[in-house]
């Protein structure tokens, strides 16, 4: 069934080879400029009325953000996830809050956590989860949570650990000197 749908969609839209993960779950990559009409078609014609989630994946190495729009057809119990790749630099997505008002929340989160802008989305520039955040959006891959944490907060001092391999080297043949002759 999903194969039929994909074949049908492929007539009108540029889609990559889909990943049929399960009988009820398919991933496919769509073009950014076709996303909106694709979403409308899926929602209004194909019955994918439920926006399950909207989130992003940071492919730092490739310089891309992947936006995942996961839609569900409740009647047929089918989930289709549309991937849209957008460049990481000056990342801007198309708002879909008018299609699904709940997308407003997702877009606010993406704006704050990934720095992806959705112009026109309500309250998109308001603070959402973070308060008084001055650093780069924290869900980006190049944001190092531990390094930030170590630079911002104090740990309780006095903890020292030893690597068993190194410790044994030191204990059994100190100063890198070879073991005494037998």
């Amino acid at each position, binding site marked *: 069934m999903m194969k039929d749908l994909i074949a049908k969609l492929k007539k009108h839209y540029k889609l990559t080879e889909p990943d049929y993960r399960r009988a009820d779950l398919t991933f496919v990559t769509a073009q950014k400029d076709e996303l909106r009409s694709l979403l409308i078609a899926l929602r209004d014609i194909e019955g994918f009325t439920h926006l*399950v989630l909207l989130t992003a994946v940071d492919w730092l190495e490739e310089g891309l953000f992947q936006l995942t729009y996961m839609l569900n057809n409740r009647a047929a119990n089918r989930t289709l996830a549309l991937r849209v790749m957008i460049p990481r630099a000056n990342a801007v997505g198309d708002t879909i809050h008018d299609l*699904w008002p709940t997308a407003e929340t997702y877009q606010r989160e993406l704006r704050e956590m990934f720095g992806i802008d959705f112009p026109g989305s309500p309250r998109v520039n308001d603070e959402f989860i973070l308060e008084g955040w001055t650093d780069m959006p924290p869900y980006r891959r190049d944001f190092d949570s531990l390094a930030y944490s170590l630079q911002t907060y104090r740990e309780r001092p006095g903890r020292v650990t030893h690597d068993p391999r190194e410790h044994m080297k030191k204990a059994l043949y100190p100063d890198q000197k070879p073991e005494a002759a037998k």
Partner: protein
Amino acid sequence: MMFNLKTDRSQYPQPGPDGKLEIDLETGKYLKLWQGPNHPGITGNMSVELTVCGDEVVAGKTHVGYLHRGFEKLMERRSFIQVFPIVCRVCVPEPDFNEYCYAAAVEELAGIKVPELANWMRTLILEMGRFNSYMMFLGGISGALGLGVVGQWMTYVRDLMLDRFEELTGARIYHMFILPGGVRGHLPDGFAGRMEEVLRTAEKYLADVEKVMFRNAVYKRRTKGIGVIDPKLFEPYGVTGPNARAGGVAKDLRKDAPYLVYNELDFEVQTGKDSDIHTRVDVRYRDIHQSIALIRQILQKMPKDGPVMAKIPNVLHWQIPRGETYIKGESSRGEYGYYLVTDGSGYPRRINVRGPSYTHAMALLEHLIPGTNISDVAQLMVSLHTYPPEIER
């Protein structure tokens, strides 16, 4: 300056031509009222910034993030086994769904088949968790309406169930029992008998709740016809689970997309039709009874013996090939899901937690609040059954 708000609606702000409300706070007609983060009528730790005109709320903005720990970031830093202990912390009152969804997502991408008994155990745990979550809910809604005694009873019953959790999983709140690959152990001896005692006690108390709450005149007056969600809003706002079922949508993932062993269990999808606070509570109340019946069924039908853990690779350097998947389940609040993306390394590339509260407590609540009475905001919010930690994670 005097004006009668009840009769003179012109004093209320009128939406502008673009449909947006322009509220000028400095006219003195309005008051900003913060409900939360420290407020008894809030489940968990979030706040609603209410703009009131008289005792009527004209606008509400939700504020979350008080419990943000950056889970999705922390998960990217941890190896696949190391994520397992932290997922349950995403949702405190019903942590087991996180464990199940995460484990199932990892198993799917790593190609691990879970033993039969482990699936039964997982179903048992999930139903026990659902029971607990609903107990919290009943306590919460009764508390929001001033029916403290129901909250006391429910907390007690929940505690009895926590004892069962403790003997089965080794912890009261964060069970950390559903491991990728299976579950951590078998049922202790005599577990079914002790569980039956708890279920009987629960039924006894629930019968009292029926009399004290559902037949209570005050309760009826304060919940019937209040906080109605138009079923047309369900799809645009992503309403799932009991909230949608209370509006007549007979959708339950346990039935529609059966996972674990739900297709071997007999149960019905509980629905209502009024979509108000009362119906939402009622649907959940019936769901509790169904959970009780399911727990009994599971204990009766589950295999008596067998392995509970599949063979998994050495977890200290477990790498999973590139792929992505989404695992969902019907939690006590609606569709709970984990979106897992792997890139072939020993760490998840991205994990996104789709909590039902995310859609229920934010845009939907903001949509429902205008026009309600201040005193109804608390039970409206509680009736949506939201847990803030799964919003901000």
